[in-house]
């Protein structure tokens, strides 16, 4: 008989703070919680912006050096257009509008949903020190600030996966 190896636990690392990077983590994380999979989210480096209260709902997407970025209508957006003032804010605003249409919640509400289902959210200690953030700067959904070693301790177990988005 073929043996099955279901995923029982996921540990998702988010190291970047652009809208698409953070939402990749949140969608994967929330999806895991919804499937009844034990879920740990670990935010580090620029990914910390997703759990810093004053920044989490003001994320942007990069408009320079993103060859997949297209204008409404499907034409590629030339990198040079990205340097026009407010282009990044405008693009980010458009992306958030598209997401809202699909019932994708803002970051803070997404963290609400994930933690309501038992998902855990952690911050990286080294990155916190580097960016001079304090615990008070973080969303109340954050369960703790972990060292790398502690992250691996949390990530252990049969059927556990570490995903770097």
């Amino acid at each position, binding site marked *: 008989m073929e043996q099955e190896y279901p995923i029982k636990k996921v540990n998702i690392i988010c190291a970047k703070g652009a809208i698409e990077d953070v939402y990749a983590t949140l969608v994967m994380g929330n999806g895991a919680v919804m499937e*009844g999979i034990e879920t740990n989210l670990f935010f580090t480096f620029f990914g910390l912006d997703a759990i810093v209260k004053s920044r989490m709902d003001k994320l942007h997407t990069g408009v320079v050096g993103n060859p997949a970025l297209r204008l409404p209508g499907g034409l590629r957006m030339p990198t040079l257009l990205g340097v026009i003032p407010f282009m990044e804010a405008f693009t980010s605003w458009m992306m958030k509008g598209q997401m809202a249409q*699909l019932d994708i*919640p803002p970051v803070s509400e997404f963290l609400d949903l994930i933690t*309501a*289902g038992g998902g855990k959210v952690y911050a990286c200690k080294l990155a916190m020190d580097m960016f001079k953030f304090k615990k008070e700067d973080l969303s109340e959904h954050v369960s703790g600030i972990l060292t790398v070693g502690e992250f691996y301790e949390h990530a252990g177990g049969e059927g556990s996966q570490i995903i770097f988005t």
Partner: protein
Amino acid sequence: MAQKIYAGVTVDVNEEGYFTNPSQWTKEIAVEIAKEEGITLTDQHFAIMEFLRNRHLGGEALSIRSINHSGVIDVKTFYQLFPGAPLKKATKIAGIPKPASCI
């Protein structure tokens, strides 16, 4: 298409056990499906299932987020009522198709 018998009634289900014809559903049937899932249904269960059924029959997509807008319970309670995979379990017991949403 598969068939199953709940509370003495034969119903059409897909290979995962989800109803393919929501109109065959009754509360008595729900109690039996819930038993298979290890859940004893309460008024709160029925209230949120009614919300899910109405939303589905109205053609709206089901998401975990929509539970917060149900006015019945919040998401945290939803996870407690249907432990494990709440949206999958709740829709199965409520006699509607498995949600195709990623959120």
